[in-house]
Structure formats: C-alpha cells, structure tokens
C-alpha cells in the first residue's frame, strides 16, 4: 500500500493527487479483477485471489499486473467471477486449478480460454467480453459499474476515477440551495422503498432553523433476498460517503451517521476502513477542502430488527431505545434524532448523489418522466442469471427477467414475480410489461420497495408464498400496534389452515377483510404494507386459494398436506434406493420388484423423488 499521503487541504491538492494517481494507473494497465463479494467468496474467490497473487509472483509479473479484489460484479449466479482488464475478458465459475492457465494464456499471451467463458443457456452462444453478455448489455451500471475498477479497501482507486470531485464542486462552486435544486431537478427518489423525492426532503430540513442537524444513511437492508445496499457499501463505500457529505452540506448538518445492520459485518468493516482513510486524507473532519465545512461520520450498528429500517424506528434505535416507529407528523425534518431536524436517505439514493452533482443533465436522460436514474434490483429466485442488475427506471419486468435474467431456470414456466420485499406484491405473467416505476408498480398492487425481485416458477404455491412472507413479518413486526401484531398472526393462522387443507370458503372473505383493515389501521409503513403479500396473491391468484379450499389440491404441488407421493409400478425397477433413503421408512417392497409408499407414514419430504433415477416417483 502507498505510504502515508499528505493531507488534502484544498481542491487544488485533490486535483493534483488525482492527476498523479491517473498517471500511475494508466487506463490500459493490465489487472485482474476477482469478485470478492459474499456470493463469490462463498465459492472460494478469496483463495483464488491468493493463488493469482502467488502465480504472478512466481512468473515475475507483480508490478506489471495488478490484482483487485473487488465488490460485487453482478452475475452472482456464475461465481466466482474473474475479469481480465482492460479488455474485460469475462471468466465465470473459476477454480483454483484454472488460475495458472489464465495467467499463462490470457494474461501473458492474450488468448481466451473457451471453457471458462459465459455461455447463454438458451442460444448456447459463448461470450468473451463482459459488456457483450446479454446480462450486462441491457443494464446501465452507473453505480455498480465502477466496482470493476475499485478495490474497496483503497481510497486511491476511488480518487483515481474522479472520486470526491463532486464534493469539491459542491463545496466550492455551489450553495446548499443550488445542490438541493440540482437534486430536485434530477428527480432522485428514495431508493429505500417509499420513493419520496430526495430534493424535497433536503429542502424541508434545510428550511428548519436549528443549531444541530443530522444526516443519516439508512443501511438497514432487511428484505429477504435483497442485497444491493450491502453490495454498494462493500463494493464502493466512498461513493456513499461522498453522497452523505454532499447531503450534509446541503441541509446544514455537520454530523452524519451510517446505520448498518449487525448482519453485515463485512460492510461495517469496509465502511469503517473507508471512513478512516477519508479522515486520514482530510476529506472528512474540520474545514474540508478548505471550504470551512466540517463533517463527521460515525457508524451505528443495528441490533437486527427489520423494523428499524423504518426511519422513525431507526432514530429510536440510534438514541438507544427500542426500535419502534412513532407517529408522523412531526416529520423527521421537524423532529428527528435527538429532536433535531434530520434527513434519512437510503444507501443507494446517496450513492446517486455524487453522480448527479458531477453530471446532472446526463443523469436526467435516464429513467421515466417522474423517476429518473437507475435502480439496482437483486434478481433472485428461479431465474437463470441471479445477481444484481442495475437498469434505467422504467424498464419492464419482462425485460429484466427474460432479457437480463435469461428467463426461468430449467426451462420451466414463469408464474409470478415478487417485487418490493416482504411488503411488496406478487405479479402474474400478464403484468410483466409493467414498467419498473414507483407509481406503476403501486397501481398494480405491488411496490418498488428497496429493489428485491424474486422470480417464481410454475412449481411455486402462491398460498405458500403468502405464508412465507407472513411468517417473516410476524417475527419482524415490532408488535406495538394491535392491528399489525395480531392481524399478521391471524392472517397467518388462516393461511396456515388453507395450506393444511382445513380451509373453509369463509376464509377467503375473512382474509380479505382482515388484510384490508391491517393495511388501513396500522401506524407505520411496514405495518400497513404487511398485508400486501396476502392482498396481491388474493388479487391475482385467488383460484389457487380456491383449489386449496374446495378441491384440497395444491396446484404448485408444494403444500405437504395436499400432495401425495406414489410409485409408478411400470417404471420402478426395485433398485431400493428410495427405500434406503426414506427417513420415515414409509417405502416397502422386495428387491427387483416395484416398491410402494405407505401414505400413512410418508412425511412428503421428497427425498425419494430426488434419489430415484428411473422417474418412478410421482408427486400429485
């Protein structure tokens, strides 16, 4: 690592350092980017990086070729991902054994290794370069794109890319009102879920007359299957810090707080490291860039409550109280942390800010009329290319799922997509042409939310999905409001009955009535939207509820009480594999003769189905 840098005291210092860094790292310098995000790390990317290091040393290439252990590169499905830059040759599912070959062939001789390339499942075509891959082609990665060029543990990588220039511009060339106007013009809307205009939020806080104000970054991302905030913090922490500082300057706050959930230890580590480096360089602290603006940032770690992502609950949590939402008004700009005017912005919203300040008009060219810019979605579930995708707002769900995501896994059919996390809704196939826009998604009974996108195939039971989210919400409701706490418990009770085959026709009417009341009468946004999983599945998949209740059948063949396993007497060879593996000893039969399952003993675990090599187990 570079020796201790002199403090950056003025804008000229910053520009000088950036020029030097650019000269040291020319654009055509060869480096190997190894994805170090959680998904790829689980596949062993850390040791792959180490082997690359050893291999380069052995070949005497250190210094000529760099290795960057980067943040999320997007295509988590194909991890570990290794990209050879500057050409951006994309290798997927790399193993330690492949490293030497990559160094010898690709790095040294510029040859492409065919077998490590990404292959499109539908067409079978192989792609060499990253931006050719259909997954990346339709994306517009203004926030995520830099991950490839940045080692999140080094502030110098961020600086070399022009980092903190937006801050310099904001502090020296713009008044707080200019910044607020620019953000308003950009139509940046809260990426945490509610979609409130960031500019209006800032303006309201700016207008408040107070000696102390606070600027908070909300990194309490808790939706199941959503991880874009974590990836931003882990992949490019300085962009969030810069956004937070610009926001602080605009609203008149001198103190910033990043509220991260305790379940994100790596993000906490990276952000603390980034804070340390920024302080060391003088980009944080007193008299930043000689402008007279002071700003401190501290990190608060949440204790693992989903509800603390609600802004007023988060403030209670920072103050040391139980994370429970309170009545708004008074709004946070009027009475926030320690009763002072406060702005809370989501990680992704803040990461947008430096870009907006740097290139305002260009930012406004992407997106829809009412919502500009891009949105990161975490595309997960039964989709071919799972991962993080960053798309211009307004792209349709179909384009995201089928063109970027590559369609449904294993050639199955699409059934539903769940957007907006547990409080969002499930949308059926005929609504796939809905654009990803705050209003449009609300109109069809779902929401943008923080950007979780869970794709479900035909083997999903929608009643079971509602049950899953209700369980999550039951555990995560703060429990203060009777309507939310008891309402969710009662909705779950009814849905449980339906999945267990004891539902009655009256249940549907009651469920609808109850969900309506929970939505209407609960205090906070999370409680109000807790009925959405039920309301949206009832709206689009009511027939599935009916087949559970009337025909006692589960169309997705998921609900254990309503399915049966039998053995096809024709196909069964009597090999005995199912018999050996059945944990309930429910299968009997002589060797080389067709076996039978005793339905009384069968627990419907499905192990026999997975183990049978002759397609003899029938699930019905």
């Amino acid at each position: 690592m570079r020796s201790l840098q002199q403090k950056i005291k003025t804008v000229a210092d910053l520009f000088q350092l950036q020029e030097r860094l650019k000269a040291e790292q020319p654009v055509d310098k060869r480096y190997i980017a190894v994805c170090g995000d959680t998904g790829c790390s689980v596949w062993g990317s850390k040791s792959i990086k180490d082997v690359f290091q050893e291999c380069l040393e052995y070949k005497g290439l250190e210094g000529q070729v760099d290795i960057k252990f980067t943040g999320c590169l997007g295509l988590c499905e194909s991890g570990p991902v290794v990209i050879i830059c500057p050409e951006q040759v994309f290798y997927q599912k790399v193993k330690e054994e492949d490293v030497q070959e990559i160094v010898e062939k690709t790095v040294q001789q510029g040859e492409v290794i065919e077998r490590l390339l990404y292959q499109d499942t539908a067409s079978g075509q192989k792609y060499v370069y990253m931006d050719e891959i259909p997954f990346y082609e339709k994306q517009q990665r203004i926030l995520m794109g830099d991950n490839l060029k940045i080692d999140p543990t080094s502030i110098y990588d961020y600086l070399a890319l022009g980092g903190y220039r937006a801050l310099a511009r904001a502090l020296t060339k713009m008044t707080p009102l200019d910044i607020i106007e620019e953000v308003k013009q950009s139509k940046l809307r809260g990426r945490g879920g509610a979609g409130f205009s960031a500019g209006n939020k800032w303006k309201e806080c700016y207008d408040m007359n107070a000696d102390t104000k606070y600027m908070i970054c909300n990194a309490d991302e808790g939706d199941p299957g959503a991880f874009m905030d974590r990836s931003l913090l882990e992949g490019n922490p300085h962009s969030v810090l810069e956004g937070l500082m610009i926001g602080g300057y605009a609203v008149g706050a001198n103190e910033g707080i990043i509220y991260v959930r305790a379940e994100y230890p790596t993000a906490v580590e990276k952000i603390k490291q980034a804070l340390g480096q920024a302080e060391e360089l003088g980009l944080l602290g007193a008299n930043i860039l000689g402008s007279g603006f002071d700003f401190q940032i501290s990190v608060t770690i949440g204790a693992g409550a989903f509800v603390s992502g609600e802004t007023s609950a988060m403030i209670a949590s920072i103050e040391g109280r139980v994370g429970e939402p309170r009545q708004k008004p008074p709004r946070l700009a009027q009475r926030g942390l320690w009763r002072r005017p406060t702005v809370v912005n989501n990680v992704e919203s803040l990461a947008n800010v430096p870009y907006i300040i740097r290139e305002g008009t260009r930012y406004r060219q992407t997106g829809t009329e009412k919502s500009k810019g891009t949105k990161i979605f975490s595309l997960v579930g039964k989709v071919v290319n799972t991962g993080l995708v960053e798309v211009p707002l307004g792209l349709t769900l179909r384009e995201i799922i089928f063109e970027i995501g590559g369609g449904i896994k294993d050639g199955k059919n699409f059934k539903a997509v769940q957007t907006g996390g547990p409080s969002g809704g499930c949308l059926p196939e005929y609504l796939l042409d809905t654009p990803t826009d705050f209003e449009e998604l609300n109109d069809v009974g779902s929401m943008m939310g923080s950007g979780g996108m869970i794709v479900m195939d035909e083997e999903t039971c929608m009643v079971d999905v509602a049950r899953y989210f209700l369980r999550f919400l039951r555990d995560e409701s703060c429990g203060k409001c009777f309507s939310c706490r008891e309402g969710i418990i009662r909705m779950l009770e009814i849905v449980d009955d339906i999945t267990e085959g004891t539902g009655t026709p009256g249940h549907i009417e009651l469920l609808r009535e109850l969900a309506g009341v929970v939505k209407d009468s609960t205090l906070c946004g999370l409680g109000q939207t807790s009925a959405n999983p039920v309301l949206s599945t009832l709206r689009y998949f009511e027939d599935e509820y009916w087949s559970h209740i009337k025909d006692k059948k589960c169309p997705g063949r998921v609900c254990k009480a309503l399915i049966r396993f039998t053995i096809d007497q024709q196909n069964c060879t009597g090999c005995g594999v199912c018999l050996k593996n059945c944990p309930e000893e429910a299968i009997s039969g002589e060797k080389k003769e067709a076996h039978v399952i005793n339905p009384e003993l069968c627990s419907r675990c499905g192990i026999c189905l997975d183990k049978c090599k002759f397609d003899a187990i029938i699930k019905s």
Partner: protein
Amino acid sequence: MIEMILNGLEISVERGTTLLEAARFYGIEIPTLCYDESLSPIGACRLCLVEIGPAGRSRLVSGCTYPAQKGLEIRTHSKRVMEARKLLIEMYLATCPSSKTIQDLASKHHVTRVRFKQKHEECILCGLCARMCEEQMQAKAIEFIGRGADLRISTFFDKKSEDCRYCGGCMYICPVCEARCQGPQEKDPVCNACLNLEPPCLDQFQDAMCYMDPCVACEQGEEPIKLSDDKE
C-alpha cells in the same frame, strides 16, 4: 388556536392537542384501550382510529397520537372507521374474551360473532401498566420485552424487580385485568372482595407511596405485604 373540521363542524383547539382530545372535548365518544389522560399516548390499540384528509385521499390514523393540524378534515364515525374498529374488536374478543371492558365494547359496537380461533390471553399489550409504572410511579419496574409475536410485559431479565414498590398502579390501570367481580358468595352476604386494606406502605414510610383509590393492595389477600427486599 388551530382550526379544523370535525365531522363537518368547524372547531378550534389549542396547539398540541391530539385529535382524540379534540373529539372528546367536543363531546364525541371514541373508544380506547391503551389511552389514559395522565400518560403519554402510544397508539397501540388502534381503536381510536379516525379518518383524516379530503375524500378520495383520506387515511386512517390513531387519534390519540395524531396532532391537530390547521385545516385538517376529521371524520370520527365514517363507515371506514367503524368497519375497521368492528373487526379490531372482533380480534380483541378472539384474543382476550375474559375482559369485561372488551365485552362491553363488543356489545356497544354490535360485534356479535368471532370468526377467528379463540384464544384466552390475559394481556392485550396496551402498555398502560408499563407507562403507569414509568411515568406516574417513576419506578420503571416493568417494560415491553421481545418483539412482534413474542412481545410481552415483564420485569427486566424476568427477575424480581428491585424497583417495584408494590404500588399496584399497573393493576389499577389495566383494562383487561383478571380481577373480575364475582359478586357476593352464597354463605356470606358481604362480598368484601375489593376490601381496601390499610396501605401496606405506611408500615415503612411516613407517606403513602401512591394516591390510588382504591388501594389495590387488597389484591394480595390477607398476607401482609413485605416491602423489604427479600432477595432471592
């Protein structure tokens, strides 16, 4: 003063008044289970729902926590409010049927059936006791513990509290307390179940430790209450 429209009437209330206070001041009855004039409101029971805002864009809020705002249109007895309230009372009945307060509410609001599975809880988690203990008795001996479905009222770490002075304020304010009137028994025409004992705190202190009437020490029966710390 703040001008608002309450059920079509123009009213004016002082700054800082809540919608529930405003409605009650103007003689409109709104049911509550978690509200007490002497305690800070938390909006937990959701029975004091009122509809605010112009038609078409209106929403329901808890009257006990929502502050009066200039020009606000409030409807306390709209169809939407009444239907939500009825279902909430039905859920209360399904949860805690032994409470006379809840049974009375059910009769008053014509809730005649319970479509949910019957439970027999002893607490509706309104939090009145915890706030009484903290705000009026300055003891803070009991609090909400846990979250969501596991939420309950208890002492810290479920240990015997050293801050509890046995004042009984928690029982006094509980809307669903199990100490129901059984009426006089056959043998004895005098019931005396609610007999008010000499406040036990006077054995140790020069002044009574609370001004509760009746003194709820009677719940403890004949055994005199030890106030000294008999630590476990």
